C-alpha cells in the first residue's frame, strides 16, 4: 500500500470510530439516567423504581384505565393536537403571511396578536369552559391557543425578512405582486415556516397535556392526574415517559418532513 492510501484508510478508520461514538453517546446518556433513577428510587422516599414503572406500564395494557390502554390514551392526545395543528398550519400560516408580508395588515393586527400571544393558554380555560363546556372542542381550542403563536411568529419573521436580492430578480422579470408573494417570498420563507411547524408541534404537545390534567377522562395528561389523585406514582411516571417518547418521535417526524419538502435545506448530517 502506498503512503497516500495508508493515510486515507487511517482517516477512514477515524471517521468510522467517530460515527460509532456518535451512536453510543445517546445510549450512554439514557443508561446514566436509568442509573440515577435507580439510585433515587432505592433511597426509600417512595419514589418508584424503573422496574415498578415498567410493571405499571404492562399492567396498563392488561387492565386499561377508562377502557383505554396506554396506546389508546396517547392516540386520544395525538388526535387533539392533530386537530389543533391542522388549524395552526392553515389559518396560522395564512395569518403569518398576512402580517409578515403586508405592512398595513401588520399595523392593523400586529398589536392585537402580540397581546393575544402574551396570554398563557391555560388562562383561557375559565372562559372556554364557560362558552363551550367540557367536550372535545374546548380542549382542542386550548391547544390552538397555546400553539398558534409559535407558528404565526415564525411565518411572520420569514415573510418580513425576504432577501431583497430574490425580489430584485422578480422585479427584473416583471413579476406581478401575486407572483412576488407566491413564487418568491413564500418559498424563501419555507425554512422559517418549518421552524414554526416544529415549534408549534412541540408547543401543542405540551399544552394538550396541561389541558388534559385540568379536566378530561382520557389522554396522557389524564393518566398523570389520575395517578396523582390515586397516589399511583408509577402511573404518573409511565405517563411522563410516554410523553417524552412521543414528543421525541414528533420532533423526528417533523424534521423528516422538512427534509422531504425542502430538500435544499439538507446540509451535512445535522446531528
Amino acid at each position, binding site marked *: 500500500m502506498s503512503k497516500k492510501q495508508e493515510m486515507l484508510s487511517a482517516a477512514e478508520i477515524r471517521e468510522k470510530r467517530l460515527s460509532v461514538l456518535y451512536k453510543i453517546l445517546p445510549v450512554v446518556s439514557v443508561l446514566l439516567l436509568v442509573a440515577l433513577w435507580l439510585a433515587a428510587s432505592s433511597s426509600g422516599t417512595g419514589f418508584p423504581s424503573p422496574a415498578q414503572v415498567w410493571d405499571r406500564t404492562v399492567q396498563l395494557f392488561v387492565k386499561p384505565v377508562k377502557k383505554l390502554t396506554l396506546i389508546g390514551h396517547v392516540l386520544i392526545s395525538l388526535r387533539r393536537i392533530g386537530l389543533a395543528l391542522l388549524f395552526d398550519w392553515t389559518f396560522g400560516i395564512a395569518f403569518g403571511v398576512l402580517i409578515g408580508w403586508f405592512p398595513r395588515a401588520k399595523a392593523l393586527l400586529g398589536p392585537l396578536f402580540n397581546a393575544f400571544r402574551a396570554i398563557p393558554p391555560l388562562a383561557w380555560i375559565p372562559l372556554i369552559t364557560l362558552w363551550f363546556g367540557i367536550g372535545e372542542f374546548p380542549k382542542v381550542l386550548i391547544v390552538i391557543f397555546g400553539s398558534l403563536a409559535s407558528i404565526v411568529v415564525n411565518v411572520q419573521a420569514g415573510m418580513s425578512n425576504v432577501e431583497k436580492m430574490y425580489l430584485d*430578480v422578480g422585479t427584473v*422579470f416583471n413579476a406581478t405582486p401575486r407572483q412576488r408573494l407566491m*413564487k418568491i417570498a413564500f418559498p424563501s420563507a419555507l425554512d422559517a415556516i418549518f421552524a414554526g411547524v416544529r415549534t408549534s408541534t412541540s408547543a401543542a404537545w405540551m399544552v394538550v397535556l396541561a389541558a388534559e390534567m385540568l379536566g378530561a377522562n382520557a389522554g396522557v395528561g389524564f393518566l398523570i392526574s389520575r395517578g396523582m389523585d390515586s397516589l399511583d406514582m408509577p402511573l404518573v411516571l409511565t405517563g411522563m415517559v410516554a410523553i417524552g417518547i412521543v414528543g421525541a418521535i414528533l420532533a423526528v417526524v417533523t424534521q423528516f418532513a422538512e427534509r422531504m419538502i425542502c430538500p435544499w435545506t439538507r446540509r451535512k448530517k445535522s446531528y
Partner: protein
Amino acid sequence: MDEKKKVILRLENICQSYVVQNGVKDAVENVSFEIYDNEFLVILGPGHCGKTVLMNMIAGLEKPVGGRIFLDGEEIHGSDRRIGMVFQSMNLMPWRTVMGNVEFGLELAGVKKAERRAVAQKYIDLVGLQGFENSYPHELSGGMKQRVGIARAYTNNPQILLMDEPFGALDAQTRYAMEEEVLRIWGQEKRTIIFVTNNIEEAVFLADRIVLLSNCPATVKQIYDLNGLPKPRNMTDPEFLRIRSEVSANTDLAL
C-alpha cells in the same frame, strides 16, 4: 463593426442621489451615453463609484432622481421585459434547481412548462451546465452559479443584458475562464451587453467600447472605442497593454 450602428439604449442626463445622515449624497451625476445594438459595452469605474446604481436604474430596480432612459427610441419607466440582468451576487433561488432557476423568468411570463423547459435547456446547454439541471445552487461552484445566472438572463430572450460585476466574487483563474465563456456565449447568441466592472484588464479584454466613469459621484470621464482591436484578444499583446495602461492612467483611484 458595420457602419450603420443602431442606437438601442440611450441614457440622458441620469442623476441619482440618496438622503444620508447629514444631507444628500450624489451617486450618479449627469450621465449620458448611447449603447449600440449588439455591442459589448463595458462600464468601467473605481469601486463604489455608482456603477451598480447606474445598472439598477437601467434594470428598473431603482428610479433615477433626474434624467431619462430611452429603449428603442421610447422612454422607459421601471423594469422592462427587453432588459435582462446578471447579478453581482448571482441571486439564485436556493429552493429552485438549476432548471427551476433558469426557467424562472419564463414561468413568471406564463409560458407553458414543456416550452419553457425546452428554451431553458437550450441555454443550460449553451452555458455548459448540461447534467446539472437538477442540482441545487448550494451544490455548485461559484463559476457554475454565475453560469446559471447568465442562462437565466438569456432564457427570457432580452435585447439587452446587464451584467453587474458578475465575476467579482470569483477567483482569478475562474474569472479568466468565465471572461472567455461570456465572449463565446455572446458570439453564439448576440445580444447587447452592458458589462460593469472595476477591473481594467477585464474591461479591455471584453469591450467593444468602454465607458470610463469617474469617482463618486459618477460622471462619464471618457469613452474608448476598442473596435480596432480584434477579438479574441491576447492580454499580453503590445496593443492590448498599451490601451490598458492608457485607460489605467486615466482611472481615478478608489478611496
